[in-house]
């Protein structure tokens, strides 16, 4: 993925993941100022997508995680993307 495509890719992932049943909100990926809500990095052909989310307790967390990862891959149009999630809040 070229640098110029990254912001659009992030927006697409954010919108797709936010729409998943059981996802309440996407948090910034880290507490450092200006951290993005979707972190994308390509290394050696592997596209890594990092997310930090709040989930809804009415949906089992495993199901939310799998659905969010699938949504991210679809938004990136990359079946081989590695999706790494942190569930930081459940309510």
């Amino acid at each position, binding site marked *: 993925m070229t640098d110029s495509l990254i912001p659009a890719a992030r927006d697409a992932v954010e919108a797709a993941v936010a729409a998943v049943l059981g996802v309440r909100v996407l948090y910034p990926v880290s507490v450092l100022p200006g951290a993005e809500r979707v972190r994308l990095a390509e290394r050696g052909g592997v596209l890594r997508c990092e997310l930090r989310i709040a989930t809804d307790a009415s949906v089992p*967390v495993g199901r939310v995680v799998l659905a969010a990862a699938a949504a991210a891959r679809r938004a990136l149009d990359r079946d081989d993307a590695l999706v790494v999630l942190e569930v930081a809040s459940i309510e």
Partner: protein
Amino acid sequence: MTDARPPGGPVEDLDGHTLDELVDYLDRGRTPYDPGIESSPACRIALAGLERLRARAADLLEEDAAAAPARPEHWMTAVLDRISLESRPGRRFALPDLPVGTDAVVTEGALRGLVRAVGDSVPGLLTGRVRFTPQEPGGAVDLAVEVSLVFGAPVDGTVAEFRRRVLALLPDQAPFPIGRLDVRVRDVLEVPEGGAS
């Protein structure tokens, strides 16, 4: 402004006693009874003054606080905004059995928040501290929760309801088996007539 008198020396005619001695005597609760001090009018007057002083000291801050005009506490808003960004993640518990290409963790902070919300939702109960203690790596995790009960709520029934709700919800959200669930009632809340303001 300085004082020329040497500190700690006799500052009044206290029949040979110093103010420091009288304060120490007061701190000891005026025991053992000191006939020299108690028979001296000057000492007794000083002791009475010291007791008044001490009583007023205890009230000083409360009165200052009550007398101060109400003010917007911008500093508090600034603090609360800042801390919500760094909300104590604690341990990271990995979700097991995920397909290749997906990695996920649930933070301890998320699980604490969940247990806290469950407790708060039980009528008559308020959650306190929530502690997770892993038993072995990758194994069961024990849970210890402190709660407050509202005065009048039936203790056994309320705690049982809390346990029921936690054990119903947690298996779908915690990526580990729950071991022990210990609930400790730490105190009782007095809720005034008509609820909290």
